């Protein structure tokens, strides 16, 4: 007997066998029920009287092939908007969350401003913000200010999402137990150092899953910028749709969005699982 094996708890081989058999049976039942459920759905949809028309309207292979290149070109704009906005949101939202957390009386105006920002921009529909920033600000005709719609569309997304994400950060910061802060301060760390080295690292790790959740949503909302004129995926699809009276391009655009959001969602799941494991170490 090796020393390592000695540490392992005793397992009853019979019970082990039983567990294995049960796992096999469960897997069998699960796959059978999945197959039956899927078959029922497919049969139900395809046997509907209007299915041929719906199939031609939404799932036409030739329309898909014809529209895909221009939808994909549009999608690159979505990805660009997303990447730029995401980085800015992470920074701006953290700033707002930190401002709201300032406790010294002298910072009251900042705290109020940050609270106002969150209250207002979380309450206003993102689409309205996109219109306001994209058409409203250029209409002011201020010298030297860009009238680029992609810039102002991105600003609108950043403003809207920063309001949400700052609340996510704040929840994370407040979830760190006060004793952590107290311990850090008693070790002589300044309140900035406490935030930087003790509170934030724990807070950010805890809010990673909800942050990713917001980014999945941001990914889709990049399509809102289309109302200002740029041709992104959904708009490209819409152009094709109205020229041929066929909605398949919209499905093509949806597939592209899904192609990005599903991996993001899986990453979120993985992070959640890892976090749970980390917190329950030693507990079985």
């Amino acid at each position, binding site marked *: 007997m090796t020393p390592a094996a000695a540490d392992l708890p005793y397992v009853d081989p019979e019970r082990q066998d039983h567990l294995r058999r049960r796992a096999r049976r469960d897997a069998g039942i699960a796959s059978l029920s999945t197959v039956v459920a899927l078959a029922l759905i497919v049969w139900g949809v395809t046997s509907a009287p209007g299915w041929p028309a719906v199939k031609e*309207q939404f799932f036409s292979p030739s329309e898909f092939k014809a529209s895909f290149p221009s939808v994909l070109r549009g999608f690159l704009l979505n990805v660009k908007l997303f990447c730029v906005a995401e980085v800015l949101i992470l920074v701006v939202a953290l700033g707002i969350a930190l401002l709201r957390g300032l406790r010294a009386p002298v910072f009251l105006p900042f705290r109020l401003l940050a609270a106002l920002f969150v209250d207002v921009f979380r309450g206003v529909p993102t689409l309205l913000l996109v219109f306001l920033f994209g058409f409203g600000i250029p209409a002011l005709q201020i010298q030297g200010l860009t009238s680029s719609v992609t810039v102002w569309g991105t600003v609108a997304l950043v403003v809207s999402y920063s309001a949400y994400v700052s609340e996510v950060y704040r929840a994370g910061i407040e979830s760190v137990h006060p004793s952590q802060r107290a311990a850090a301060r008693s070790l002589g760390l300044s309140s900035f150092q406490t935030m930087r080295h003790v509170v934030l690292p724990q807070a950010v790790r805890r809010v990673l899953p909800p942050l990713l959740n917001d980014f999945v949503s941001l990914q889709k909302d990049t399509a809102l910028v289309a109302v200002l004129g740029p041709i992104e995926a959904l708009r490209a699809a819409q152009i094709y749709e109205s020229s*041929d009276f066929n909605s398949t391009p919209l499905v093509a655009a949806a597939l592209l969005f899904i192609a990005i959001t599903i991996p993001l969602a899986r990453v979120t799941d993985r992070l959640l699982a890892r976090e749970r494991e980390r917190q329950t170490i030693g507990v079985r």
Partner: protein
Amino acid sequence: MLTVGTDKPAYPPYFENNNPANGKGFESAVAYAVAKQLGYATNQVKWVVVPFNSSYQPGPKRFDFDINEISITPQRAKVVDFSDGYYNVNQAVIALKGGKADGVTTIEGLKKLKFGVQVGTTSLQTIQDIVKPTQQPSVFNDTDAATKALKNGQVDAIVVDLPTAFYITGAELDNGIIVGQFPAPAKGEQFGLLMQKGSPILTCVNQAVAAIKSSGELQQITDKWLGAGAGVVTFS
């Protein structure tokens, strides 16, 4: 009861006061004239709101015909039925006085402009197929947004059908001008009444359209609501 569809808001000069049922505006008048030929009195016509992009979705239609400045194209006719055309439409370019587009008379001269246009229109196809501009055109949900972008200087010019161009430069833009109109495409571009594919009333509707054409009623309606297209430069 004859059910007629159109989008909301319904824009002049095709409809007046966003109310298709008042008989005012070109398409409202055409719809009532066709209805009369089909044997429906004014009070037997019911209007329903049909957003443009729902007019061609599969499934039963909520209207007998839809009148919404819809251009007849062969691709579209695969999905729905169109009546014979009731209006020959030309596409036109609007811009601001003194702007980059002011004074352009050739299609070549249009190429370097930034265009704005409403999604789902043949105006967009005109830009893409005839002008082929060097900058990607901006595509908006509606002509209102395109007009806003023109005012803001975010686009140099917008493309709309000629009657709309007259309306926008007359009523919505203080210093708007019609730069010019595009030469009519080979087979012409026509507005048609949209019906369910295989609609049983297609033949009757076509007869009605032919009747108001030959009696001169359609011409009267066109003159009354869309007025003169004269005095607009055609791009060479």
